[in-house]
Each structure stands twice: as structure tokens, then as C-alpha cells.
């Protein structure tokens, strides 16, 4: 079998798996489609089976891929260790120490609380400083109507979030901004995401996006 035909075969398999899964989900989850005929529930259950099996296989593959990802990470940093990359040595030592700690202390996750949570929380807190300083410099390069609008909206929302009775009128504006424009934008965003997901799914099913193939056919 030639290389081109193999690529076509993989695309065909992916297409068929996708179609089977969709049909299985569509028919298996809606026994009402078969009417009130006797045995319709059993038929729906049987039709749902292929989709369920395929989806469970995907979950297993994803779980295994996590293990593969960890192994790949280790291999990469072992390779970097050979190049005397100090940070890779730190990573490998941390990896080993965390495993040792977790095993010997019977599932103690205090390292998570002592290291990872403070670091990630601190990084999230730095976002506050970055955004505040960035917001203060908007008009430095963009002193136009859009810059002013941006700053004005930011100030209204910030003032509206302050728990001060004197700012009650501003809070009303802020609430309106959050409930009308922000909500409208959020809904538009969700519509866009949904449409994008449909398009991406159809492209994958039709073989236009073939991320699963091993090489270009």
C-alpha cells in the first residue's frame, strides 16, 4: 500500500469514526425518534453503544497521553541535562523529590500548598499590578477618543466595584455596563465559539484538518 493511500486510509478511518460517533450519540440519546414501537429503547441502547465505547477509548487515550507527556518531559530535560542546563537539573530533582515525598508521606500534599499555590497565586497577583500600570499609560500613545473611552469605562467599572456609599450612582452605571454591553459581548463570544467548534468539527470530519495523520500524504 502506497504512502498516499495510507494517508487516505487514515482520513477515511477518522471520518468513519466521527460519523459513527455522531450518529450513535444522535440516535442513542433520542429513543423517541423510533416512536413508541416495542423494542425501541433496546434499539436506542444498542445504537448508543458504539459511540460510548469510542468516547471511553478517547478518555483512556487521553489518560495515557498524560503519562507519555510526563515521560517526554523527562526525556527532554535529561537531554538538556547532558548539555549542562542547570534549570533542567532543578526540574528533575524537584520531580524526584516530589514523588519521594508523596510516596513516603502517604499522599501528603503539603508541598502543593507550600510551593505551587503561593507561586501561582503570586503570579496571578502580579497581574493586578501589570494591568493597573498598563491602564495608567493608555493615553501616553493613544490620546484619542478610543483611548478616552477605554479609560472612562475602566474607571467607571473600578469605581462601581468600590464598596462606598458615596459612589452609588457610579455603581448603577457600572452595573449597566456589566449587564448590557459586557453581557452582550459575552453572548456574542459564546456564539462565535459555538460556530467555531461546529466548523472545526466539520473540517475534521471531512478531512480538511488532519491533525491525526502521521505525515503529509
Amino acid at each position, binding site marked *: 500500500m502506497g504512502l498516499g493511500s495510507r494517508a487516505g486510509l487514515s482520513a477515511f478511518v477518522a471520518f468513519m469514526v466521527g460519523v459513527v460517533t455522531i450518529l450513535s450519540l444522535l440516535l442513542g440519546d433520542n429513543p423517541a425518534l423510533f416512536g413508541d414501537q416495542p423494542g425501541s429503547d433496546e434499539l436506542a441502547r444498542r445504537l448508543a453503544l458504539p459511540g460510548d465505547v469510542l468516547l471511553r477509548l478517547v478518555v483512556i487515550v487521553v489518560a495515557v497521553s498524560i503519562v507519555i507527556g510526563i515521560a517526554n518531559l523527562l526525556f527532554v530535560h535529561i537531554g538538556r541535562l547532558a548539555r549542562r542546563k542547570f534549570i533542567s537539573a532543578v526540574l528533575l530533582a524537584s520531580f524526584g523529590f516530589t514523588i519521594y515525598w508523596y510516596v513516603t508521606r502517604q499522599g501528603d500534599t503539603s508541598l502543593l500548598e507550600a510551593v505551587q499555590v503561593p507561586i501561582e497565586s503570586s503570579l496571578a497577583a502580579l497581574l493586578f499590578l501589570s494591568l*493597573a500600570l498598563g491602564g495608567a499609560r493608555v493615553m501616553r500613545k493613544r*490620546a484619542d477618543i478610543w483611548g478616552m473611552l477605554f479609560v472612562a469605562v475602566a474607571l467607571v467599572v473600578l469605581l462601581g466595584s468600590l464598596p462606598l456609599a458615596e459612589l452609588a450612582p457610579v455603581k448603577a452605571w457600572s452595573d449597566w455596563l456589566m449587564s448590557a454591553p459586557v453581557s452582550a459581548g459575552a453572548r456574542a463570544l459564546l456564539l462565535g465559539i459555538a460556530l467555531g467548534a461546529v466548523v472545526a468539527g466539520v473540517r475534521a470530519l471531512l478531512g480538511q484538518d488532519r491533525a491525526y495523520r502521521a505525515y503529509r500524504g
Partner: protein
Amino acid sequence: MSEEFNWLEYAEPEESAPELPQRSGRRRILPRLPSLPRPRLPRLPGKPRKPRMPRLPKLALLWRRRGEAALEQPSATDLLGGHDERSLDELDDRLLSLRERSVASSQPSADSRQALYDVDDVLVTPEILEKPGGVISAVALSKAQQQQVELLRDIVGGAPQADEPGGGRLFRSAPVFSLSAVPRVVGTGILLLMASLPFVSSDFSEGELPPSDFAEDRPGPTTVYNLLDNLSADDFVLIGFEYGPTSAGELDPIADLMLRHIVAQRAVPLIVSSNPIAIARAQNIIREINRSVASTELSLERGADYHILRYLPGGSLGLRELSENFADVVRVSAKGELTGLEFASLSEMSLIVLIAEYAEDMRNWAEQVISEADGARLLAATGYAAAPIAQVYADTMDGITGLVVGYRDAYTYGEKLELNFGELPQAQPEVEPALPETAPVSPVERAPATAQPPPTETAIPSATQLTTATPEPTVTSPPTATQLPTATATLETIRIVEVTSPQQVRIRRGPTTADDILQLARAGDSFEVTGANGDGSWYSIALSNGLEGWIAAFLVEERTVTVVEFQSGQASASANLSDERVFLWLESIVSLGKTRPRFYQSDSPVPGDELEYIWMRDRSREVPRLRAMTFGTLAATLLIAVGNVFYALAALRRRGRDAQSE
């Protein structure tokens, strides 16, 4: 195509081991950028050179080779082309064709070369190639793009580009301090200072605290609270922990409170997550709850009082697995042990609670979990960042019944919980059991043990006579006398004060208004009196966190509480308090030797019944934190306003100058 430039020859030579083949089979349209020289730190004079790394054992060498291979990211075809330990006769058709492909791709054919030349002819004109630097110098941003990059870099305070002085090098010799950094340094300092002030002194208390009940125009949080409050013993609640350490500061309080609320109803939480770190976080929150119980006998037991189920890989597919194969998922815990739980479907869950960092998680749960569970209700909690989209989901999706947002809602939830469950103790150091024989009972304030039924009114000593304090919490309010069980002994009589002021009152470190504020109290809160100042204008009271505070006498009403022991060996404090919401039982302080009482709600005050119980989390830092958020937001607002006004005026001045010059 210019004769002076051949992209194939220009391609950067690989640094990998020579035995590894180069990545092939990909058409390279543009030549690779030359690699930057590796920065080296200047070696200090006299400093010994780094010792050579020890030789790696054989297995490690194999790993190293694999690591190097992974680093270079060769394809399977490349790897196969580089191997020659097997003769070609041993290879099957598939491996043979792959090897042929590898060998062929390492020697570009005339067709592929021509194809790439064609591409170069299209993309790169001879004019470009004749310029110094060729293609690389031609790949440049337009003026508008450069302005956008400059704007972004200016906003985020980015590092200089490679063509700027000192740019492009990892260890550039930039000055330690630059005048251009002054605004950023000053702004950062102001923000940090303002956000830190409430933690330094309680005088910085601007802004209103969140209310003690949810606003009527937001029914979602009230629905969440009421549904959790209506749980009954042995109900099962599925809890989705879908947040990581980044959102721990914002979502930990509400997760903690919800868990306490659930276990207070003696319902059983089943914790599950598609985020492996979130499972560890849930375990730590349970551990925090157990730390607030001094006796291990009272702590939550994994596998009985709560369950942490196995990790769900695959994101939304994992959640579908949860809903479709719920019976299988609940059989195994996160530690791989059997849980012993037998459920047929998700519909057997009384409630489903989701604590999510992202709105996407809410959508996944609503689509994959709730839609598969008939009649299930999803209660959600999320942070401010996800709130705009999460609120849309909560408003439009049928399964989502209520939504709690952010730290302020968590504070209100805690307030509501405390009010409905009474004055609850916070976590405090373990103390020895207060046995009646050894308890430091003052003859003045403690009544002798008698076999009288409760309650027993005792003469109240004067405030100045009180000198001792006992660790037992005190507040009680029996609904009716007929509901009380038969008392066997009166243990002691203690004095309490109940806050009568309709406004929140301040409990201070000393008997003056100049002393620091320790905490706030509201009408109905009660505290044990441990003493008074000379003129009786201030009471010294025992706080639930073990500290001693002072409260002004005109804000409170003094009462007497009698602690009695009942036939079942349990003790209770009772008094004629006006607060009818709360009836707290002190269980087995003496007879069972427990060091910390369990607190029950007042619905069924018969000891031994299946009563609700709860231990409250330590909320002492919540008020300073809320103040810090207020001050930080205020500082950010001022900074943004002042900064932009300054820059806008500068821009106007610059434009005026430009207009004059024209």
C-alpha cells in the same frame, strides 16, 4: 533566483549529534534565522572552573540519547533512517518504506528543490536578495505594525529590542536604575502600600463590608444557600472542584464554606474533578476543616463523611464519562481504593455543586453532566474574572439553579452561615478538657453543682468581681422548657453579654476607643464575660479565637448562663436569651473527654438526635482582606485616572506645539 543566495546552503547547520538525522520531509520556505550566540556570564577571577559532570551509567546514556532525540523533535521517519543496526532484509514493508522515505527526504530531489525555488521566486524578489542581509532584512514590520508593537511594549513595560542599546542579550549591561522606570516604580509602590495598609492597622477601614444576607435582586446566591441548607442527613452531594492554585485565593473560602455547610447537614459530599491538582486542593480544604476540630473523634473521615473520587481525564469527555458511567466512577477513589458506593445514576444525587475557575467549566458541566441527570440541579460558584460569561450561562441554561460570585459573596455566605448556626467557634489551639473537678471555677461566678433542672438563675456578681475566664463557648437559647431533657447536674454558671446595638459594634484590644479593633459583632452575638474595667464601662470578653477583647457596656446587655449536664452524659448551656434562632449544645465536654464541643442547630434540641452540626472556619483575616481589596482598587483607580490625565495633557501640549511649528 539569485546566484549569490542559495537557501539550501544558507540553512543553519544543526547542533545535534552527527549520528542523528536532520528533520526532513518538511519544505522550508524561508531560511532559518542564524542562532544567537550563547550568553556567558563573566567568570570571576580565581573562581575554579565547574567540575565536569560524572559519567552517566548505561541506562542514563540511553535516556540521554532519547532525550536528545526528543529535544530535536525528529519524526519517526527520521529516527528510522538513522538506525542501521538491522539489515534491510529484516525490515517489513512498512518499516522499509519509511526508511526509504527518510533517506529520500534527506537528499532533496530536483523536483522538491525546484518547487522550493519557485516558492522563493514568489516570496523573495531579486531586489530583496541583493540587499545586504537578504531575506532577513526584508522581513520587517510595517510602520503601523511597528507603532502597535511600540504601544504594546510601552504599556507592558517590555524589554528593549535587539537593535536597541543593550537589547537582545540575556545579560545585557543595562543600568541598574533608569529614570524612565520611575513612574512604574512609584505606581507599584503606591499600589502595594495601599493594599497593605489594612493588614498593618485596623484604622484603615474605609468601605462597607458585604451585607450579612444576599441582595433580593440577586436570587441566585440565596438559592444556593437555601438548597444547601435544606439538605438532610445522608443526602449525597456531588461537588465538582474545577479550579487550580491560581484561583485558590478567591475560590477557597466559598469552597470551604460550602463544604462545611454540607457536612453540617450531615450530607455526604462526593468530590470529583477533571483537574488533578484540584483534587489535591479539595483534600487540603477537608484537612483545614478537620484542623478546626480538636478531637480526631469529631473530624471528618474519608470514605465515610466524604469521598474524593478518581480523576476524570479528557476534559469534557471525562465529564461525559462521569454522567454516562456514574456507577463506575464512584466506585473508585482518587487513591485507587474502592469506595463502596453504589449508585445507578447521577439522578440519585440530591444536589450538584460546581466550584469553577473558568466559565468554560460551567458550560461543560451543564452540557455533559446536568443534561444527563434528570431533575438534577447545579449550584455554581466562580470568580469575578469568569462572572460575565458564567452569569450568561446561569441565566440561560436550565440546569444551573444558582450562582455565587467572588470573594464578597463568599463573605456574605459565611455571615449568613454563622447567623443561622449561631456564634460558632473558630479554629483554635487544642486545649485540655475542662473537667469540673479541676476547672478554675471562681466561687464568685460559678454556682456549685446541684441536681437541679435547668435553667438556674444565679445572682449576678458585680463586674469588678470577675477575674477568671473559662474556654467553653456560651450562647444558648432553649426554644421551650418542655423540650429539654432531664438534667442531672448543674455544672457552672457564667456571665455573658449579648450585643443589643442594631449597628455593628467593635471589639477592641483594650478598654478605650483608641485601641485596635479585633473583630466586629452584631446584634444577638454573645460573649462570655471575663472581667470589666474600673468604672464598669467596658467588659472584658473571651473571643472564640482564644483572644481577650473589650466591648463597651452600653452596647450590650448582661445575662447569666447556666451550664447543665444531662442524663445522656452530654452538657448544655442554657439561658433566657432573646435570640431564639440558636440553641447550642455542648456535647460531652466532661464525660467523653472531648476537648471541643460540637455545636448544633436549634431545630431539635434533644441530645442524641440526628442534629445538624458545624465548625466554622477561621474568618479573622477576611475583613482585612476585603479592606485591602477596597484600598487596592481605590489606588488603581486613582493611578489610572492621574496617569492618563497627565499623558493626555502632555499629548495636547505636544499637538499644540506641532500645530504652531506648522
